[in-house]
């Protein structure tokens, strides 16, 4: 079994633990699992509809950036050693947008998916990056704002360095599994 197939199997097993394990646990605890599932799932459509304006804004802007040739120009400045690792300018844009906005970075991943294809290396790498980083600046603003703290000390540094390590780990893991 190749490393790609093993990753797929492990991923599927983890998904099953959530998908089957949680309803079984719920049923054992006396939860009406079907009704509860439906009640929670109703929010799914709202989330998808709410995200439309963000995706339109980002996909149009990044799409223009790509079709104008600006993306290629930007990519030509990226050292070829990084390009060999699959770090193209759209991946860089994703990593840079991620700490600022969750919806905007999801939009950039959407653009990567629609221009490179959903099974492309870039789409997988982008997804793993999105999954291992956080909207650091937004979270810090909300949480420190709630208790009116202005001297944030090292919270932002630690969060941003963790995001950078998340990106490096994503590139490494994707290289090993999907490379």
């Amino acid at each position, binding site marked *: 079994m190749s490393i790609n197939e093993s990753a797929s199997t492990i991923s599927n097993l983890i998904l099953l633990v959530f998908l089957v394990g949680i309803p079984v646990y719920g049923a054992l605890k006396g939860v009406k699992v079907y009704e509860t599932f439906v009640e929670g799932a109703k929010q799914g459509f709202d989330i998808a509809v709410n995200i439309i304006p963000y995706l339109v804004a980002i996909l149009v802007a990044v799409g223009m950036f790509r079709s104008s040739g600006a993306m290629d120009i930007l990519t030509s400045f990226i050292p070829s050693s990084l390009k060999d690792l699959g770090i193209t300018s759209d991946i860089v844009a994703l990593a840079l947008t991620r700490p600022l906005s969750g919806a905007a970075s999801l939009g950039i991943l959407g653009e990567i998916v629609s221009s490179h294809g959903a099974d492309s290396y870039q789409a997988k790498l982008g997804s*793993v990056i999105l999954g291992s980083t956080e909207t650091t600046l937004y979270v810090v603003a909300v949480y420190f704002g709630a208790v009116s703290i202005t001297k944030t000390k090292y919270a932002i540094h630690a969060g941003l360095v963790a995001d950078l390590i998340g990106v490096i780990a994503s590139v490494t893991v994707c290289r090993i599994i999907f490379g």
Partner: protein
Amino acid sequence: MLNLIWLGLLVFSAITALLTGNLKQLVNSVPDSAMNAFKLSLGLTGIMALWLGIMRIAEKSGLTEKLSLMIAPLMVRIFPGVPRGHPAIASMASNLIANMFGLNNAATPFGIKAMKDLETLNSAKGSATHAMCMFLALNTSSLQLVPFGAIALLAAGGSKDPTIIIFPAIIATSFSTISAFCIARIMSRMKRYQD
């Protein structure tokens, strides 16, 4: 910030297109992109609904609450400045578990309560405590185990195996969380961050 980046993308693209002669491609890309954005958004619905449904069961069955209680002893070790049994331990644990499951709507109120609980231990008002910095470092390192937003997007884009990213994402996110912990711990000992 995003206002500036967005405007910059539009203006820079237009100028580049004029210089490179890609004006036609640029204009043609606009309706395609807008259409794709709509299709992708609607395509997210199925997996979003599925995941939110499962997670509602996790919440209602008390599973997330139980896991929060289970990690409480660990919390005391991660946050040495917070006394055992302090309300901040419970609110932080609830927030971290909600984040692991991707329950963003539940995580934020717990997180704000955690910050208020931590503030009661703060002797220098307006200045962050070590526990606050550690809590935010963990929060901003991404704790979510299954990145269902990205999976939904891959599925909406027609991927053959959108869930394949679960395992690599868990490994990468473990690295970022462990390093956030280490960095915050190391920085908490630095002289410049002592009160």
